[in-house]
């Protein structure tokens, strides 16, 4: 039975993702019929269909990348820290990325530069947390990492508060606020592709780590006894997760709850092993992102920020999942 599930499940996830992708690509205010869209994909469509594809394509890519990245990073952290509440913002990366973007918007930078600043800010916060934790040398350092991550995140949030206070209220402040609340629609194709690369690198690292993450979750002593270089591998895992989270926030803003919810849902389906949990989480995270992306523009021309939607849907969903799983055990 589980062998059957093992081969059916990836196929099912791929199918669902394709269906979701089709939905995103085929619907929108520029009422373009699906067959017109197909000819546009082939490169010979009417200008309007080409335009629709040019606008919806990056949106699809940004949503999938952001959702998968956050879910993968969340799953990685949950395994490493043996903590079901571990979220991608554990090392303060989301807050750091938000600060980077806000600073760039304060200085009037263009969209690509804002994305770059957000990416850099996220990595800076993560590096700060890792460096501070490395100074403590306590045991396997998991508690130190969490504390340093909280500190880095708090510093970034404080910086963000300062930026908000100083920003010009009629134009800069709304820009910053909207950026932080999240949107999949503002990325152009080059920006979306730029986000895919770090996420792909990070995801490849996490998937390669696979069973090694399981060993790391047993603790440093066990890991070393089983012959693994625990510290370098843990650093690799954390760096990969930080890379993925930074990239996700840089392209779409702060979208919470995906990184917490998707791994929990994936765990119910594929179990605890990292080798299957990480890819399954990423697939579910991408699907979730597609759903909220569709909802963002489903209620009129004004776009609902996806950060709000992910919280409004993700939090109750997480509660339901949690109650369901605790009833089971």
């Amino acid at each position, binding site marked *: 039975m*589980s062998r059957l599930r093992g081969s059916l499940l990836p196929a099912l996830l791929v199918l669902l993702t394709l269906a979701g992708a089709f939905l995103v690509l085929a619907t929108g205010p520029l009422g373009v019929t699906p067959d017109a869209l197909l000819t546009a994909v082939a490169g010979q469509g009417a200008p309007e269909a080409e335009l629709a594809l040019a606008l919806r394509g990056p949106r699809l890519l940004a949503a999938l990348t952001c959702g998968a990245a956050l879910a993968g990073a969340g799953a990685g952290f949950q395994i490493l820290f043996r903590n079901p509440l571990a979220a991608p913002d554990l090392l303060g990366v989301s807050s750091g990325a938000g600060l980077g973007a806000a600073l760039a918007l304060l200085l009037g930078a263009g969209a690509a530069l804002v994305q770059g600043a957000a990416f850099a800010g996220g990595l800076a916060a993560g590096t700060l947390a890792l460096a501070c934790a490395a100074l403590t040398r306590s045991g396997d350092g998991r508690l130190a990492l969490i504390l340093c991550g909280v500190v880095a995140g708090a510093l970034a949030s404080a910086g963000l508060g300062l930026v908000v206070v100083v920003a010009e209220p009629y134009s800069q402040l709304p820009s910053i606020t909207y950026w932080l609340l999240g949107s999949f629609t503002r990325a152009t194709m080059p920006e979306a592709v730029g986000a895919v690369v770090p996420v792909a690198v990070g995801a490849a690292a996490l*998937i*390669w780590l*696979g*069973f*090694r993450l*399981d*060993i790391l*979750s*047993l603790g440093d*002593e*066990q890991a*070393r*006894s*089983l*012959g*693994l270089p625990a510290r370098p591998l843990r650093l690799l895992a954390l760096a990969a997760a930080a890379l993925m989270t930074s990239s996700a926030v840089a392209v779409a803003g702060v979208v919470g709850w995906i990184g917490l919810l998707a791994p929990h849902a994936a765990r119910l389906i594929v*179990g*605890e*092993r990292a*080798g299957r949990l990480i890819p399954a989480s990423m697939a579910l995270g991408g699907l979730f992102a597609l759903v909220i992306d569709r909802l963002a523009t489903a209620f009129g021309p004004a776009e609902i920020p996806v950060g709000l939607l992910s919280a409004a849907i993700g939090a109750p969903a997480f509660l339901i999942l949690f109650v369901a799983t605790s009833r089971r055990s």
Partner: protein
Amino acid sequence: MSGLRLEGLVAGRLSRSGGGFRLPPLDLTIEAGKVLALIGPNGAGKTTLLKTLAGLLPPLAGAIVDTGAPAYLPPPGAVSAGFSVLHLTALGRARLRRWSPGLTPDDLDTARAALDRLEVGHLADHPFDRLSSGQQQLVLIARLFVQDAPVCLLDEPLALLDPAHAQAVEAAIQALAAEGRVVVASTHHLPFAARADRVLAIGPDWMEIGTPAEALVPDRIRALFGVEVSGCPCCGQALS
């Protein structure tokens, strides 16, 4: 498998405030295929010595002559994992899979064989955390077989186990040694020590190594633990 040799090894812990402790220097050679039992009161330093032999703690002085990578097993209850027993056992092969992205079916087969050998093969698909202490301990020893380390260091492997599981674990430990490994196990269960090949007694400021017959006579035990015992302190079996 060439055995374990220690040259003037001083195990201990140094704390920054100047406390800590050090054990006396240890010169020791144990041939392959032998079981060494470590006995001593709580806090004597058995765990510290085991971890030093395992390479988890740095020695304060002296050397362990390189015998290959040791494997260390913490006391029962220290290992917790949510994934399946089979996966946990197969992780013993991690050292061989330096660069590959996953465990091979061969690894899984080896794991299954080890589990079957210890008669816990029927638990292969259960989550590890759902097993009893005895079953968990057997699984972890199966992992030691899979790991195939030349030196196996077990910290109180019989603690908290009922007699049936204790017997099974002891048989497994003997089997580990029989395949040519050096097994060092600390224990409070003196009958187990009586059946080992050598016994290392760690006292408050001395260490003695000898055969079980030499080490387990009543006045050596009195000197070690400070109490009079006629049978095993924890289960009352006769010592012989």
